[in-house]
């Protein structure tokens, strides 16, 4: 993650303080922490803030059509850029609409700051119109939150919020500001600095532990690196790659870790876990030493914990001490920032003797690669994902929604660079993909960005096509339309005797919907039309382009390790 230094003020001489209201104070504080853009939706309690934003030429406000989109877009913005994503909503219903996006940011450790309006101080706690206890509601889904009771406290609250959001293990921070605090005239002090005596993230790993880890890796016969989102957060891709190049140790990536290493690198085994490659899962489960970096041993990776990598000694590197030993005991725990730890560790590892190990892995890779077949004129979802990978060279930023299409894209899209795969990993929130892609496009207008969504999930946030059209975003939105809540249908097929309870969708004509919004819309029903449609969409400028690809309604996503089971129970493709 980009480490921005908090520069609350440059002036050394104490200028006479200006009078302004709380909302103007907020805007100035946001300016001083470097905010250029925020996503939001106004309402009564945030009207003073919007009035102050009206004068702020240098801070762009993107009006979304639903606050959920503001939060997801802030996440997309943060994950694509490495800087803090900002969203804002009014009190009560506005704030509660942010909840899903903030929870996603919490689960996936994304630096987001949310600013919410609150009812005026005298009526707080009285069930006033549009009052919700937002700091109470968001306590478990934010890294920190605060209710600001005086306008002069706003600068420090904002500096604290940004400092907390982007340092240590990043996460969402919410600042709740009552309307009358925004309106009150004050003389704010912008020279104040963050004050958080209880917050001291450890970044440097313990040298003795690092030596021990280096010795364990050097002596390993079947080592593997299990790398996750923490690599991306800390910007440790060069250090990871250097370690792999020097030692030849294979790397398996988590869903959140996609992009942490070039997936075309011969040492990279791609994604592991429930829908990961068979060879990555076999490899980690046969390993004798596992270097786990920036991962949290999520159950979608480990399956049944006691059977996960049963022969391995674990070296666990994480900036959050609470992650180490949480799910699986670590033999060599290292608390620290991935970049720093890998930089220190790399030079101390002597290349282990692993020719036999690689022979085994290559044999597995040959035996069970990802593969698909197009049958009876139907479009395979995997073919579309594979094509998108080829057409973009794995260098576009892809935001996915949640479901089968997400897993297929994770399998087929081979990220070449960090911060190119944006997906709701921990929360698995449908409705995420399109807003997150918008956020990413605002953060990286120079880059090809695309959304890959399911027909189900897209309908949770598609109203914001208005926003994308309004801002003339060059944004392809590819729908893998299987006429179903495909992942639900798959589970019902495998585990509920094919009783398809409420998983089949009757959909609108998405291309026509797109056109009604002023976007471009293309409908694709035949395999031979797919490539041309995707090529057109990727080349479309100045307007979002929805490609509704009608895919095989019966395709299932494999391999699959059923929930709570182990690699031994993995369901392979036929």
């Amino acid at each position, binding site marked *: 993650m980009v480490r921005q230094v908090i520069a609350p003020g440059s002036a050394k001489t104490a200028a006479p303080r200006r009078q302004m209201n709380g909302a103007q104070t907020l805007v100035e504080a946001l300016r001083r922490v470097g905010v250029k853009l925020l996503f939001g939706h106004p309402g009564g309690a945030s009207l003073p803030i919007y009035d102050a934003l009206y004068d702020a030429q240098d801070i762009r406000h993107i009006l979304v059509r639903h606050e959920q989109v503001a939060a997801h877009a802030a996440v997309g913005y943060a994950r694509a850029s490495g800087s803090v994503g900002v969203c804002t909503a009014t009190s009560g219903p506005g704030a509660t609409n942010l909840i899903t996006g903030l929870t996603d940011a919490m689960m996936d450790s994304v630096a987001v700051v949310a600013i919410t309006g609150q009812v005026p101080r005298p009526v707080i706690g009285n069930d006033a119109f549009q009052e919700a206890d937002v*700091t109470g509601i968001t*306590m478990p889904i934010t*890294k920190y939150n605060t209710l600001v009771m005086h306008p002069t406290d706003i600068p420090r609250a904002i500096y604290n919020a940004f400092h907390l959001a982007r340092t240590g293990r990043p996460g969402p921070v919410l600042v709740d500001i009552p309307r009358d605090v925004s309106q009150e005239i004050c003389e704010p002090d912008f020279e104040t600095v963050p004050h958080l005596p*209880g917050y001291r993230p450890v970044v440097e790993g313990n040298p003795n532990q690092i030596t021990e880890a280096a010795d364990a890796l050097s002596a390993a016969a079947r080592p593997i690196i299990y790398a996750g989102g923490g690599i991306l957060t800390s910007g440790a891709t060069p250090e990871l790659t250097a370690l792999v190049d020097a030692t030849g140790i294979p790397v398996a990536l988590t869903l959140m870790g996609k992009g942490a290493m070039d997936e075309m690198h011969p040492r990279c085994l791609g994604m592991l876990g429930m829908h990961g490659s068979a060879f990555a899962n076999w490899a980690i489960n046969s390993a004798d030493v596992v270097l786990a970096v920036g991962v949290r041993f999520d159950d979608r990776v480990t399956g049944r914990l006691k059977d996960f990598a049963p022969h391995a000694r674990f070296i666990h590197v994480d900036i959050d001490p609470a992650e180490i030993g949480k799910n699986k005991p670590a033999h060599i725990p290292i608390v620290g920032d991935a970049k720093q730890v890998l930089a220190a560790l790399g030079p101390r590892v002597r290349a282990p003797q692993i020719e036999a190990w690689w022979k085994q892995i290559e044999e597995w890779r040959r035996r069970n690669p990802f593969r698909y077949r197009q049958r009876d004129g139907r479009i395979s979802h995997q073919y579309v994902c594979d094509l998108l990978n080829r057409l973009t060279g794995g260098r576009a930023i892809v935001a996915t929604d949640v479901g089968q299409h997400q897993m297929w894209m994770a399998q087929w899209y081979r990220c070449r660079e960090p911060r190119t795969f944006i997906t709701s990993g921990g929360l698995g929130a449908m409705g995420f993909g399109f807003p997150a892609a918008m956020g990413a496009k605002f953060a990286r207008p120079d880059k090809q960005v695309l959304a890959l969504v399911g027909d189900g999930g897209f309908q949770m946030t598609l109203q914001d096509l208005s926003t994308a059209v309004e801002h003339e975003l060059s944004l392809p939105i590819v729908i893998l339309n299987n006429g179903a809540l495909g992942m639900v249908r798959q589970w019902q097929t495998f585990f509920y005797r094919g009783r398809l309870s409420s998983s089949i969708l009757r959909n609108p004509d998405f291309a026509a919907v797109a056109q009604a919004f002023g976007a471009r819309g293309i409908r694709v029903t035949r395999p031979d039309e797919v490539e041309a449609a995707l090529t057109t969409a990727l080349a479309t400028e100045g307007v979002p382009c929805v490609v509704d690809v009608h895919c095989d309604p019966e395709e299932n996503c494999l391999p699959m390790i059923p929930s709570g089971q182990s690699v031994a129970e993995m369901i392979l493709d036929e």
Partner: protein
Amino acid sequence: MSEIAHAATISVLVQNAPGVLVRVAGLIRRRGVNIHSLSVGPTEDPSISRMTIVVDTAPERTEQFAKQLRKVVEVLRATAIDSSPTVDRELALIKVNVTPGTRLEIMEIANVFRANVVDLTEKTMTLEVTGKGEKVDAFVQLLVKYGIREVARTGQVTLVRGAQAT
């Protein structure tokens, strides 16, 4: 009351700020664990409070709780108290029925436990006792037969013995 499978003590120093108690309690609640007792009070520095939390959880999970608690921004220090020798104290007020016939008997019991009589009426006596939880439990048990009207207990407070900080 003392019939808990496991009781682990966690001592937490926090900034004295709104919402901190809820954050700390919420973290424990979220993990489906019962708080057996919780006591909060200021320290020698009025801006810092100490919470002593006794949770019904297996000892091997206690350190994970302490780690999670350390992530709360206002938490300055969280210690899972495991093997270190400690001083544990609890205070209880017990209001018990008395008759002219039982008064002396109860005062004798109180003497043994070094409890003080802090209120006395025709029909009731209120006793104050301090000590480890087990001692308070034992005292309460002995008073049951006289008819306990009300009990108020503080919950345990703990410090590690000697020069080591808690």
